[in-house]
């Protein structure tokens, strides 16, 4: 049997060569160990890099792991070179993406009813960027396509998995809380309105 130290070292080499997120399952097969054991080693490695404050980190994306640079070193990297950056998403794209991320699987109709406007072009753009994908068909009338987010979405936004998404209830509460706190102001403004 291969020692833990050897396996972990090999995993680092494999992560480095692979570049893309490396599936834990695939890595486990190389050593004929089970998923759980391999997953544990990856977590340990990730912890080590993080604890040591290394300039490279191991991040988890959807049961896959990948080497990447430390966020804090961005300025230095940019001083060294100007890496090609992906274009940022437009406001409509971000909104549609948010709806899909939280409500997936979701149909185009549902998205449009929340935003009150058509979103064919936006969906197309997001699919082209591989941030969303068709994940099935609804059982509803016309069997509309269901959309969901992709591992690429997780990667780009730094989520380990969908559980990493900020709680949507929290967002709702924040809205309500703010409303409550500010209700006095509203009344005052309301007063102003009447005076005006």
């Amino acid at each position: 049997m291969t020692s833990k130290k050897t396996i972990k070292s090999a995993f680092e080499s494999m992560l480095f060569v692979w570049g893309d997120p490396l599936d834990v399952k695939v890595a486990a097969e190389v050593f004929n160990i089970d998923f759980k054991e391999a997953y544990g080693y990856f977590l340990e490695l990730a912890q080590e890099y993080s604890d040591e404050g290394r300039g490279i980190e191991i991040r988890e994306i959807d049961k896959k792991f990948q080497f990447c640079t430390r966020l804090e070193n961005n300025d230095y990297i940019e001083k060294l070179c100007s890496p090609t950056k992906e274009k940022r998403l437009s406001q409509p794209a971000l909104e549609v993406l948010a709806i899909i991320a939280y409500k997936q699987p979701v149909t185009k109709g549902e998205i449009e009813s929340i935003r009150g406007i058509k979103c064919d072009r936006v969906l197309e753009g997001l699919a082209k960027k591989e941030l969303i994908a068709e994940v099935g068909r609804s059982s509803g009338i016309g069997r509309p396509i269901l959309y969901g987010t992709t591992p690429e979405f997780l990667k780009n936004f730094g989520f380990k998995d969908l559980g990493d998404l900020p709680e949507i209830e929290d967002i709702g509460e924040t809205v309500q809380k703010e409303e409550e706190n500010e209700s006095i102001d509203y009344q005052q403004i309301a007063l102003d309105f009447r005076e005006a």
Partner: protein
Amino acid sequence: MAYKVKLDIFEGPFDLLVYLIENAEMNIYDIKVSEITSQYLNYLSLLQDYNIELASEFMVLAATLIEIKSKMLLPRPKIDGDESAYEDPRAELVQKILEYKKFKTAAENLEQLEELGLKIYSKPQEDLSQYTKEPDEFIDLDLSQFVKAFNLFIQKKKKIEDIHKRYEKIEQDRMSVEDRMIEIRGLFKAKSGIAFHDLIADNQDKYDIVLTFVSVLELIRLNTVSVRQHTSLGEIYLTLKKPKGGELHHDE
């Protein structure tokens, strides 16, 4: 109060509505429908003045706002004097606005995360061709295949057994009693007495042994040889009888 129109293209009717409500600093739960409707309509006509193409959805919301406004003007029907039974015409709109705002906030969060994400770099995959060797063999098996193989084997075996049952084994041409008798008599040319045991070689099968025994019996019957057994189950000794009249002959 005069409000300044922001000539942004709003993403949708809700986006515009939320903007107007927030700009007017209204409480979402207590929208002044009359005021917001006129602002909304003013904005739409302004956009049209600038020849900005408007999606029909903006008009749909305008119609909804006007409908709510008219409902608000109607006296509230009091059911048994219970105020709570009265449904606010704005309720559905408020729900929709809240739902939209929820995702607008989520989108803003995503935007921030996207910005962070853009500051983290991964590296491209190495040239893997230097590592690829002969493909590994991978055994692909399933239960049905396994059972099928075993079935096939059992079938084959049964077929063979079946064939064995139906056909008699064709014996090779083997030595006859006559031939064996001549052979045995020939042995007496070298010696006068032979032990029966010596007539049977170690590698002989049942047929050969029986053949030899029958041949000996026949020779006795023909008076060609005499046999003697000293002890019960002991060795049988054969001796050639002196022929009475030269050549062997078949009597009877």
